[in-house]
Each structure stands twice: as structure tokens, then as C-alpha cells.
């Protein structure tokens, strides 16, 4: 209590700096993974990808990011265990942010595949279990989170597999693939619009309209989401109607025209992907920051504290800045290297991944967007959709689990003791 009074100002500033730094890191690296597939398939240009990412990452973070943030800031640690020493929670969350940020920096220089989500969860669990007590960790929640890391790539893979199979059945393997593409693609667009609206209505409006006592019943939400979905589909159908069948494309290149139509669909799934990513990954930065700030301000740990929405806003801005300063370069690299993913495949992978991530965001589970996308791409591969996938990557992901969790934990324990030594 005294410590928080004495150093409150400094700790508050540190929390904001570390939090925004972490958000910057997410924007600089993770977003590129989520959006790179769109750029790589040639559906959108780099500039368009950055613009889409800016708008939809921010929207996702602000409208649907609250649930995961709540998990990170008060779901992993049992607040009651820290009742007597609220300053430990502040030190710990600062340590976790710094540890995850440092680890991401190290890993990115060495070139290891790491996940921001895994780093931050490992860091929080690490300081809580070792520096405070094993009981301080809400192990039930943590095991749910870890289980979701296995389930999310599998689920995304399954959805993408089914999506691509449906594309094969309805469009690619027909006598008139171009005409069928125009006929069926609006259905996929409807799915994108419906999904994003539904999640926004269920999760987002709760805190946007919380003062206006604005409440919708589920059937009402369903209808609104369906209407938005139809509008999105109509917009998509209009855009597709402007695609001209290229007659010069000879028989040898039968699918070139079809892919052009899919490229339009992919603009929509790219938006969904950015939205999904924003809804889940912004919490990695914002969650610990919010926990620290709330504790500093109130001087005690309050389980029921509400989160000021400016913190989510700050996280969203951090991500956008990260993307604008550094992320677009990573995106350009990914875009250049992934040329095997045509729009008809890329859309299936992105839609499968974004559905999974948005679902996890709704339940409040912090998952890795990158790993989910990898699962989705493999799902399309299993449907015999991609010419060559490197399976060594799957091994790398396991390695990243094994390395990142302890690394984040050890670093955060060290930082925790450093903060404790400085401030007490």
C-alpha cells in the first residue's frame, strides 16, 4: 500500500510504456503473420493490407478484445492470493510485460518461431507460481488455456479443410467454375459479415454501450448480424460483377479467372483475420497493463474492477503504430515468399483461422493467431489444396511451446525480483 502510494506515478508510467511497447511488438510481428497470406496470394496489395489491418485490428481490439484481456489480467492469477500485497501484482505484471517483450526481441533476432500469447502467459504464470506461491495461479484456467493451444490449430484446420472441400465441390470441380464462383462466393462473404457482427454485438457493445443501458436479445442480434451479412454479400457481389472474364486466358489456364473472383473474397477474409487478431492478441499487451494500472489507482486488488476503455484504445493504437513502423516490412517479406497460396486456398485458411480465433476471443481464451493460421493452412493442405507444405514447421511450433513458456517464466521471475528490489 505504501509502496504503491510512494511510487505510484512512476509505476503507472512504466506500466503504460511497457504495455504500449508490447502492443507495438504485436503490431510489428504478429499482424504480419495474420495478413501476410492475403498479400502473398496477390489478393490485396501491401498498402491495402496495412490499411485493412489498421481499421480492423483496431475494431477487433476495441469491440471484441475485452474478454481475453479480462482473462489475462485477472483470470490466470487468483487475486485473493495477493490481497495483502497488491504491489506484487503490479511488479509481476510489469515484469511479465518486460519479460515477454524481451523474449520476443531475443527470439526475433535469433529467428525462433515464438508466440506473443505463449510468452505472456508463460511470464504471468512464472512470476505468480515462483515468486508468490503455487496457489496464486488459477491452474484450472491455465490448463484450459493450454488445452486451447492444442485445440485451436486443430479446429482451424478442420474448418479450413471443410471450407476448401466445399469450394472444390461447388466451384472448382464443375463445368463452369467461373460462373459458380460468382454464384457461391457471396455465401462465404455472408459468413464473414455474420461472424464479425455477431461477435461484436455479443462481446463488443457490452462495454461500448454500457452507460446507455442498451441491450439486445439474442434473436435481435441474430437478425442484425444476418442483415449485415447480407449487406456484405451484396457489396461483394457488386465487386465481383466488375470482374471480367478474361477471354485471352486459354484452356491451359482455366482457373486464373476463378482465382480472380476469389481474390475479392479474400479481401473480406483479410478483414476478418485482422479483426480476429485484434480481438485476441491485443490482450497480450493490454491485459497486464490494465491489471497494473487498476491496482495502482485503487491501491488494492479489486476483483470486480472495470477496465477503462482508454486502455484498450491505447493497445489498439500501439498495434497500429507497430504495424506502420515495422510490420509492413515483415508483411512485404511474407507476401513475397508465399506465392503458392492462391486466393481460393488463402480464403479457406484465413476464414477457418479467423472463425477459430474469434470464437476463442468470445470465450476469453488467449490463443496464438499464428499457430491457428498454421493449423488452418495445413487443413487446406490435407484437402490436397497446396502443392508443397513444410512439415518441419509443425515441429518448430512444438519447440516454441517447450522453449517459450519457460523462457517467459524465467525472465519474468528475474524482472519481478529486480522490481521488488528497486521499489521496496
Amino acid at each position, binding site marked *: 500500500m505504501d509502496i504503491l502510494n510512494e511510487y505510484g506515478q512512476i509505476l503507472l508510467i512504466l506500466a503504460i510504456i511497457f504495455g504500449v511497447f508490447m502492443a507495438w511488438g504485436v503490431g510489428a510481428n504478429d499482424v504480419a503473420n495474420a495478413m501476410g497470406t492475403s498479400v502473398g496470394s496477390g489478393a490485396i496489395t501491401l498498402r491495402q493490407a496495412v490499411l485493412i489491418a489498421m481499421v480492423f485490428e483496431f475494431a477487433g481490439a476495441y469491440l471484441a478484445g475485452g474478454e481475453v484481456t479480462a482473462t489475462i489480467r485477472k483470470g490466470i492469477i487468483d487475486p485473493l492470493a495477493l490481497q495483502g500485497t497488491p504491489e506484487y501484482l503490479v511488479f509481476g505484471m510489469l515484469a511479465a510485460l518486460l519479460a515477454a517483450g524481451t523474449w520476443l526481441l531475443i527470439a526475433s533476432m535469433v529467428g525462433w518461431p*515464438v508466440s506473443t500469447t505463449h510468452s505472456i502467459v508463460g511470464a504471468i504464470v512464472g512470476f505468480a507460481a515462483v515468486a508468490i506461491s503455487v496457489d496464486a495461479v488459477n491452474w484450472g484456467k491455465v490448463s484450459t488455456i493450454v488445452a486451447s493451444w492444442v485445440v485451436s490449430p486443430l479446429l482451424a484446420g478442420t474448418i479450413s479443410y471443410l471450407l476448401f472441400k466445399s469450394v472444390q465441390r461447388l466451384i472448382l*470441380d*464443375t463445368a463452369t467454375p467461373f460462373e459458380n464462383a460468382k454464384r457461391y462466393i457471396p455465401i462465404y462473404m455472408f459468413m464473414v459479415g455474420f461472424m464479425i457482427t455477431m461477435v461484436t454485438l455479443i462481446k463488443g457493445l457490452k462495454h461500448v454501450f454500457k452507460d446507455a443501458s442498451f441491450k439486445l436479445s439474442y434473436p435481435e442480434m441474430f437478425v442484425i448480424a444476418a442483415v449485415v451479412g447480407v449487406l456484405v454479400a451484396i457489396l461483394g457481389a457488386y465487386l465481383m460483377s466488375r470482374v471480367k472474364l478474361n477471354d485471352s486466358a486459354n484452356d491451359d489456364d482455366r*482457373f486464373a479467372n476463378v482465382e480472380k473472383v476469389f481474390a475479392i473474397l479474400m479481401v473480406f477474409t483479410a478483414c476478418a483475420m485482422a479483426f480476429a487478431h485484434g480481438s485476441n492478441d491485443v490482450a497480450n499487451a493490454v491485459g497486464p497493463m490494465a491489471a497494473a494500472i487498476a491496482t495502482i489507482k485503487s491501491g488494492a486488488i479489486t476483483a470486480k474492477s472495470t477496465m477503462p476503455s482508454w486502455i484498450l484504445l491505447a493497445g489498439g493504437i500501439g498495434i497500429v503504430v507497430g504495424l506502420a513502423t515495422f510490420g509492413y516490412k*515483415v508483411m512485404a517479406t511474407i507476401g513475397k515468399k*508465399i506465392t503458392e497460396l492462391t486466393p481460393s486456398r488463402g480464403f479457406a485458411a484465413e476464414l477457418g483461422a479467423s472463425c477459430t480465433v474469434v470464437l476463442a476471443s468470445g470465450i476469453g481464451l488467449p490463443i496464438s493467431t499464428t499457430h491457428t493460421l498454421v493449423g488452418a493452412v495445413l487443413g487446406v493442405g490435407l484437402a*490436397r489444396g497446396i502443392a508443397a507444405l513444410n512439415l518441419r514447421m509443425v515441429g518448430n511450433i512444438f519447440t516454441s511451446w517447450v522453449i517459450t513458456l519457460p523462457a517467459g517464466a524465467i525472465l519474468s521471475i528475474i524482472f519481478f525480483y529486480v522490481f521488488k528490489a528497486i521499489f521496496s
Partner: protein
Amino acid sequence: MASSTIISLFGQSPIKPLQNHMHTVFECTEQLNDFFVAVCAEDWPAAEAVYNKIAELESAADDQKQDIRLHLPKSLFMPINRSDLIHLLSKQDKICNKAKDIAGVILGREQTVPKKIAADLKAYIKSAVAVVLEARVVIDELDELIGSGFGGREIDRINKCIIKLDKAENKNDKRQIALRSKLHAIEADLPPVDVMFLYKTIEAIGHLADRAQSAGEQIQIIIAR
């Protein structure tokens, strides 16, 4: 960092390089037409020039083959069985090896062709090269096969191409039989070693067409899995 996760997930597709290899193979065997024109005219410097071109293309195909094999790590996950693919590659490669052998041995002993069978021999080599072309057409469908995600319609298309390939090979067989009986009719008037040699050449050209057919049919094995 994390960016490498997505990048390194995608391997280099072997399909386009495989098709390029087949194009080189066809270009190589196609030279046999010019080669036999020169041989029948007994223009040995011209024949040698064509032979050099054949050798050059054959070695280019070899390089392509090596390159494809190097880029096929075991960890690659493909819609096509890896060993089927390597098998197809080596079948393609054997076509132009045979082409080089045929030209090389003829040039080596400056084997002349009796006037009475020259026209038939030229037609025969032409039809053998046509078989290689049909095989190339089949291989060229590979990327469409993947583009369609192994759709049934694409498989039907390929099967039609394979029927054309089989027909071309059949035609070539018939030419071979006709040419052999023509040679048989005049063999008593020719030096025995030359006759033996011509029979061998006719047989080798038949093998060339066989190999092309077998490369094209390898696609059926790829589809069947």
C-alpha cells in the same frame, strides 16, 4: 521471428520445375527430327551440330533434375506422393537419355541409312517425337490438377490426354513393324553389321516412345492415390 513461422510453412512447389524439366526433355528429343534429316542426307557436320545440341539439352535436363531432387526434403507435405514424383522425374529424364544414346551411336559410326527406308525412318522418328509431345501435354496438366484440388473433372481431362498418348504410342508401334519389314526385304543386299545396327536403332526409337508413354502414365498412379 514469428514471421518465419508462416513463411517457412510453405515449401517450394516442385510442380512447375517438373513441367519445365519435361519441356527441356521434349525440346531435346525433338532435335532427333533434324538429326535424322542430316543423317539421311549424310551431312555429318550438320548431324554433329544437332548431336551437340541434344547433348547440351540432355545435360540441362540433368541439372534441372538434380535441382528438383535437392528441393524435395522428406519433411515436405504434398498432395502428391513424394516417391511417385521422384519416379516421374526419373522417367522423364530417361526419355532424353535415350534420345542422346540414339544420336550418339549413329554419329559415332557415321551410320548411313539405305535410301529405300530413309523416308520411313524419318516418319518413324517423327511419330516417336509426337509420343513425347503427348506425354508433355499430360505433364502440363499437373498444375491444373492441383489447381482444381484433384477434382473429378480434371481427372477426366487427364484421362483423355492419356488416351491420346496411348494412341500415339500405338501408331508408333505400327510404324516400327512396317519399317522392320521394309528393312527385312532389303537386308540381304546390305552389310550385315549395318543391318543389325539399323534394327537396333529402330528398337531404340521404339523404347524412346515407350518411355514417354510410361512417364505420362505415371500421372495415373499419382491420381489413383
